[in-house]
């Protein structure tokens, strides 16, 4: 009999420890939305009259690659760059210091260049010391570090003057070479074919860097003179890498025209104010609820308050685990969860009072209270979850964050308000042999 309770408490304890581990320290573990730390949120739309969805979708893919390339160069922590539907791109840049500049950079037209790489190690060494030779420039590859931030990696000394630019490319696509490895095929237009043939003829065994908006994306070695305007880039590409490089090449060939159809800039001061005001309101609200419950239900109120605290801890723990974004409406969602979390306990406690009035023993009244309140609690929580999930899946930006915290909070509520409080009440009833309860 008692053993069953030990397992229950062990489970509750495990949940507490796990959540604290996931959440602590909260500044690092919980992602904050733009409205809480400042930043830029833009939605871009491809302006293309073509009716063909595939064409539009491809244009959006190219634009996405161009934008990603630039944002990686900005070194923003945890940027979100994603396609929505076929023709829209959403860009979230949390914590950007100069939002106007970021927006300007995103909006530029793509520039793709082919530049010859210097094969003289002495020149590179000098350049790294700060003496870049005349007619050359120093570029850096960008690579993701373990935290997902792009950092400059390998340096590359290239000729300033490009050999070719994106306007000479007709098409580029991923394919497979004779041994089955992914490769990238480039087709030059007529003018480009002639230029490319000359470049390859004169620079055999040199590297030709493919540079998008000033960042090298690949630097294949020229093996031979290539006539006919068709070239393959082979290497140890993964399918993803090859596809991305092909998109980069196509993006340079015909940059997609984009319209910025939604733009939201939150300055860092406003972000700070939002977080301070939002949290203060949520905290005072929670304190008020806690005091009220203590006042109204005494010992049982304390129990409900414990369940409330646990509910918020689990909510934050799940948020941290799912890497969910906490937005200002999300903070409101947490606050609301505080208000709603005790609802289930109120329903139960009121029911217990009623059962006690019919002359039942404390134990019987408590059991009946929990049992009979269950249906009402489930029904009311599920209707709220329906609303919360819809807001999460259909909501935009900060509203999404609200749907997320609300849904998690309500689900956690079923565990804390019913399972946790019942376990504690039962245990107290058994160990203390209580004859009368005040509720």
């Amino acid at each position, binding site marked *: 009999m008692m053993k069953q309770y030990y397992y229950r408490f062990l489970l509750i304890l495990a949940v507490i420890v796990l959540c604290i581990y996931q959440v602590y320290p909260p500044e690092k573990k919980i992602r904050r939305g733009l409205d809480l730390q400042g930043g830029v949120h833009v939605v871009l739309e491809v302006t293309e009259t073509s009716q063909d969805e595939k064409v539009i979708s491809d244009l959006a893919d190219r634009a996405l690659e161009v934008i990603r390339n630039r944002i990686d160069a900005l070194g923003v922590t945890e940027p979100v760059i994603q396609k929505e539907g076929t023709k829209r791109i959403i860009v979230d840049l949390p914590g950007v210091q100069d939002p106007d500049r970021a927006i300007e950079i995103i909006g530029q037209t793509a520039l793709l260049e082919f530049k010859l790489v210097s094969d003289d190690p002495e020149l590179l060494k000098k350049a790294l010391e700060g003496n870049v030779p005349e007619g050359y420039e120093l570029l850096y590859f960008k690579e993701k570090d373990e935290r997902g931030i792009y950092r400059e990696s390998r340096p590359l000394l290239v000729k300033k003057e490009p050999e070719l630019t994106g306007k000479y490319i007709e098409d580029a696509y991923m394919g497979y070479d004779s041994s089955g490895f992914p490769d990238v095929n480039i087709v030059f237009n007529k003018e480009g074919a002639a230029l490319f043939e000359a470049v390859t003829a004169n620079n055999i065994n040199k590297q030709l860097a493919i540079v998008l908006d000033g960042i090298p994306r690949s630097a294949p070695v020229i093996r031979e003179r290539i006539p006919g305007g068709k070239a393959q880039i082979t290497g140890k590409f993964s399918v993803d890498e090859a596809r991305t490089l092909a998109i980069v090449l196509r993006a340079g060939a015909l940059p997609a025209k984009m319209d910025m159809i939604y733009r939201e800039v939150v300055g860092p001061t406003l972000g700070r104010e939002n977080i301070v*005001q939002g949290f203060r309101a949520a905290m005072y609200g929670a304190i008020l609820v806690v005091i009220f419950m203590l006042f109204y239900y005494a010992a049982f109120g304390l129990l409900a308050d414990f369940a409330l605290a646990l509910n918020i801890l689990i909510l934050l723990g799940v948020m941290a685990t799912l890497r969910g974004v906490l937005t200002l409406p999300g903070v409101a969602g947490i606050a609301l969860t505080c208000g709603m979390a005790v609802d289930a306990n109120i329903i139960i406690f009121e029911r217990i009072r009623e059962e006690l009035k019919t002359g039942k023993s404390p134990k019987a009244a408590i059991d009946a209270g929990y049992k009979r309140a269950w249906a009402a609690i489930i029904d009311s929580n599920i209707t709220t979850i329906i609303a919360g999930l819809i807001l999460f899946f259909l909501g935009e930006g900060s509203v999404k964050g609200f749907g997320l915290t609300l849904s998690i909070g309500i689900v956690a509520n079923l565990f804390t308000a019913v399972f946790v409080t019942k376990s504690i009440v039962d245990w107290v009833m058994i160990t203390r042999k209580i004859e009368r309860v005040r509720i």
Partner: protein
Amino acid sequence: MEIIKSPNFNFIGKKNIAYIFSCVVIIWGMVVLAMRGKDNFGVDFVGGDMLNVEFKQSISVNDIRARLKELNIGSFSVQVLGTEGKEFIIKSGPNTSEKIVEKLETTYGPEGDAFSIKGKSSVSPSMSISLRKKAFYAFILGMIGILIYITVRFEFRFAVGATLAIFHDILFVVAVLALTRKQIDASVIAALLTIAGYSVNDTVIIFDRIRENIRKTRSDDYFTLFNKSINETLSRTILTVLTTLFVVLLLFLIGGETLHIFAFCLLVGFVIGTYSSVFIASAIVIDWHRWKPHKFKV
């Protein structure tokens, strides 16, 4: 401690007064809504620019309005935040915010010196259309979800009563927004859906008790039985909404400007949701029963 001991009010008997009250507010609100037209909506639903500007010194709203009027940029609104008269929200048509910032610079001094822009947003008409569409779908989907759930758990007539009560709550809140000249934006839609999900809670608790009482008494004097059920659950109906209102009230009072409208909607919506659970939802089921008697299966 107990707030109400063994209440015995005739709620269902007051239903006609409640119907009249609700209809008056909703119709009046809808008329104002229709008259205001585009002004009812925030920039995310009609497209346009929004600036949040903070000045170093306090400036009168009328002064800003007069200066911006010289620009001939069509309709715009200037709203003061706080009590110091330093922070303003300026809403204007699409692609006008740059002109506004320029004007502010020539009038009051350079940005960064005389004022700073704390936040801004701009929504193109095409984006606003898809935001509106999404809000509409979210709403319909939410209502259908709740309708189906209650039908499954209770009975179709109850589901209709509950859903009509939700519609009532939403319309009521929209009416209050129109009457208080507030703007509907994406956060209002989020608030309305939350109200839909939450206000049905009280209704469900009452229905749950009605179901239980029908089972227990086998009585078909539904008028008395409904009243008894509402009275029995009255204390929890009031307590649950009360604890939630504590939180919403604080969000409304000290949560800051961004949450202001959102919290306002929740505040009105939760109170009205409780009112409709008591006076509207059950009353509709009773009226339906009087019109076409029906024995509830439970």
